[in-house]
């Protein structure tokens, strides 16, 4: 890891979130480092998506502060945060082709037409969609759609991209390929990515660090290696370590079956 890893890009301080009387998150604090790939892992309804929505700015914490690059952004509207988001079903604009999905946000900024085009073409090449510029979302595969969704955020040069379970709608085999592509892309761009998932393997395969969330709190925030070898509590052991061990065992079974 490079030396600027040490500087934090996001700093969440004592965040709590209530919906009416229901508490979803209680007094959590964490930092995200520049260029890091962080996964938020936990069972359904544990509040991981709420963290994401607060980072993007469509939910406000009931109490606590969100600091980005040293600036308090708790009350900054989404468009001024310079954070991009990719949703589970990608939410591409169905009536626009790939080019216009990506260029749409630029059309309302003070930019020359040529400048926009150059920028969009550059992004299209970065994510490898040159052959699909004129296709509509319906004509693309799931993986291609995901790349369009990423490109759509990249075009605004965000500091951070958030992912809300982007692989859960895909086939198991494709997931593995896309994971690699996403990892490669992150290494190429050096951009900070925060990734919400309930899939333990996915979190471990992709992340520099994993944040395991349970019972309104952060159960553990550490590297995959440390979590696997030193789970913080009973929940982490059960939810993460046991699950992964089972997977490994079943893979070993398959291998030994084949050897016979």
């Amino acid at each position, binding site marked *: 890891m490079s030396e600027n890893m040490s500087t934090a890009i996001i700093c969440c301080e004592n965040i709590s979130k209530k919906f009416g009387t229901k508490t979803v998150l209680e007094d959590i604090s964490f930092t995200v480092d520049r260029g890091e790939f962080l996964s938020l892992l936990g069972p359904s309804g544990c509040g991981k998506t709420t963290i994401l929505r607060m980072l*993007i*700015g*469509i939910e*406000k914490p009931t109490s606590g502060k969100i600091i980005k690059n040293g600036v308090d952004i708790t*009350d900054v*509207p*989404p*468009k*001024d*945060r310079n*954070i*991009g*988001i990719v*949703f589970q*079903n990608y*939410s591409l*604009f*169905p*009536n*626009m*082709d790939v080019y216009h999905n990506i260029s*749409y*946000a630029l059309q*309302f*900024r003070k930019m020359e037409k040529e400048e926009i085009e150059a920028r969009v073409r550059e992004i299209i090449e970065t994510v490898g969609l*040159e*052959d699909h*510029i*004129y*296709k*509509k979302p*319906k*004509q693309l595969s799931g993986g291609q759609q995901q790349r369009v969704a990423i490109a*759509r*955020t990249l075009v*605004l040069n965000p500091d951070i991209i958030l992912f809300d379970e982007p692989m859960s709608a895909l086939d198991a085999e494709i997931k593995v390929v896309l994971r690699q592509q996403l990892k490669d892309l992150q290494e190429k761009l050096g951009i900070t990515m925060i990734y919400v998932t309930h899939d333990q393997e996915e979190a471990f395969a992709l992340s520099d660090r994993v944040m395991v969330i349970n019972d309104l709190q952060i159960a553990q925030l550490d590297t995959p290696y440390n979590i696997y070898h030193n789970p913080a509590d009973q929940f982490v052991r059960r939810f993460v370590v046991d699950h992964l061990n089972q997977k490994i065992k079943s893979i070993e079974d398959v291998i030994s079956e084949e050897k016979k």
Partner: protein
Amino acid sequence: MRKTTGFIRNEYLRLISIISIILFAIMPIFTLIFHVKPDDWTFVLSDSSFREAVSNSLLYTTVSAVITTLLALISAYLLNNANLKRKNLFVILLTLGMLVPTVSVGLGLRLLFGTNGFIDLIFGIEIEVRGIIGLIMGSVMTSFPATFLILYDAFNYEDKGPYDAANIMGIGKSSTFFKLTVPYIRIALISAFFACFTLIFSDYGIPMEIAGKVKTLSMYLYDQFMSSFQYGRGSIAGFVLLVPSVVSFVFDLLFKDQSVSDKQKPLIEEGKGFSVVAETVLILLFIVLFLPQMAFISLSFTKAFPNDLSFTFEHILSIFSNTHGVGLTVYIRNSLLLALLTALFGTIFTYGLGYLSVRKPGHLGKIVDLLSLSTIAIPGLVLGIGYIFLFKRTNGTFYGTIMILVTVNIIHFMGSPYLLAKNCLNKINSEYEIIGETLGISKGRIITHVLIPSSVSTLAEMFSYLFLNSMITISAVAFLCTYDNQPLSILITTYEKNSNYEMQSVISLIILFLNISARALLSAVTATFTEKEGAENDIGKGLTRYEFDLLTYLEKNGRGHYSQRKLADDLTITLSNAERIVQDAKEKDYINIVADGSMEVSEKGIKALEPYRVRKAIILAAGFGQRLAPVTLDTPKPLVKVNGVRILDTLLDALYAKDIKNITIVRGYKKEQFDQLLEKYPTVRFIDNPEFNLTNNISSAVAAIDMIDRCYICEADLYVSNPDVINKYEYQSNYLGAKVTETDDWCFRKHNGYAVGYQMGGTDCYQAFGISYWNSVDSEKLKYDLLKVYSSRGGKENLWEMVPLKIAKKNYRLEIRKCHKADILEIDNYIELIAADASYATYPGYEDYTVR
């Protein structure tokens, strides 16, 4: 906690919507209460004619609603389960009754039955329809379409999977009907019955025409307001009218699932026998339902029924004369204006309500939803009288203007379009607004750029519903219109009073005609909007290449006997393949094989070919034709005659022969001479390219860029000797080429069937002829790339075909469409011209040119 401004703005809009619905829908009903005096109650409750009216109304409404619901159930079931070819046609026919006012149906019944009616004249049978019988007949006919649609939709969204399972397990049809269909349809059936009941109960068009001496509740209300001016007593009748619709509304709210789920289509189709029965029943039903319409249509063209039965246009033509005071044209204008304004504002309003109640709704959103739905429960009659009370004081500014009619119509009919909008917006991904927020795109732009383009067909449906209903309504408008803004439908009721059957018939016919036209126009507009979308979606899902080849072959050669051997030879496929493809096409109903063994393309086959039909041709004819000087000094090359025929005529004839008549010619050099083409080819259009002598032909292609879509792009100097180089259908984008052993001309090589390596001169290659076809997707790419190259530095120096074949070739896969070299005669220079037509050997000035 800070809220975003967009959020606050939406909350304001929600508040405004809530207030406007309360003001225009709820308040009018409540004001009725204040206009009922205590002695009105005592009068009405002791009024024997009121009690009679209530019991009559309950009687005929119940009987009619039961009959209608049963008929609707049977026809919806038959239409959904029988294996019928033209389901949509049946739906249109069975709902034709929605296009005329209920008074017109009543009128038709009177013309059919009774003394001197059509039935009396033809069969000599007199039936007194006025009274309960007529009320029931009329009510069934007028309420059938709406009831049928509710049930048809319900069946349509039923999952057909369990039926397939039952069928495979050998469970009989009657058993599946009671075990599967009935439980599924139960709620929809009750809901349809209530809706039907409400419709009949509050209608006064039918009673007005056909009740005779029988009193009904709606007529009681109407008389209290329009003849006795007893507003308080009328209001009491209004409350009673409200009861069934409130019951119906509450039932729907509690039980009916208004969301729409995806259904599974049946795998197993019904056998033919059942379908024939179903078809017969449905056709008979349509005929019966259409009889009243037939009656008033006939009367409109009869001189003086029943004494003089000769055919005449007299009544129709009297529309334009002033014999009836102001002439009908004024009323036609009133009706159209009212319907258009209602449809326009109503669509915007209800779409807005749908948006506000579905997209991030919050608590206020739920109130918007409930209030919007509640308007369904208000009968038009009651709404109309409420408006009199509430808005009378605004006389001149609102009351008495067309805007109060528009408002009352929108409120009266907004329930259905609101539901359409809500369902449509519900299905559109809810995250677009969030994406917009993070990208800095406002909610308004997301609405105009994403949501509205995704709801075009729903918007058209909403518009059409509001338009048609405000064309035919008489209930609320009757109380509110003035002499100046009276619409056609109200005029019928005026003529009803003086028993002028001819005028009533003619007006009914006009309304029917206007509504049919409006419907056709709207579906044509929607079709052009959605056609492109469809064409894009069809990629990869349409016909296979083999199917395409077979169908175009049969389409071209017409019905006849084709042996497998002949097909295999002509389509250059193996015999076993031919057998398989024919079998396949037969199973998909793309072809009909008649008993005598002859074969033809079916209607479905033609439909399947439609996405591949060549829509237009663009001919690039701006250039000078230097190498044909001196002839081209006088005449542009495309118009030079070879053996007496203009070169361009050979191409235009070939296009016309394949019914491609949307032809754009880009002209430049001596452009006025092209006008002579119009005489023989009237559909040709011209685009001028003023840059023709400064640039290469890319400027001509760019001049016609808006025309590029599913089209041929042709050079203008091809002497076409075999018109079959033009096809009616093309499977994919392609470029015409002829296999040659050697050429000095532009040519390409073939790689997996596609054109590669475009270059000047080559051996063992395909010589390129300037006719290419561009499908929907490639057209879009081509437009984009042409403009890009054209606007780049030095881009104007290019031949247009360099863009797809060389400069941006990686964006395209162009198939080589094979022809023979002799199919097209190339006349590239003066010597070749003389070779083709010896008369040019002595053209004035030829000496300077032949020796080059």
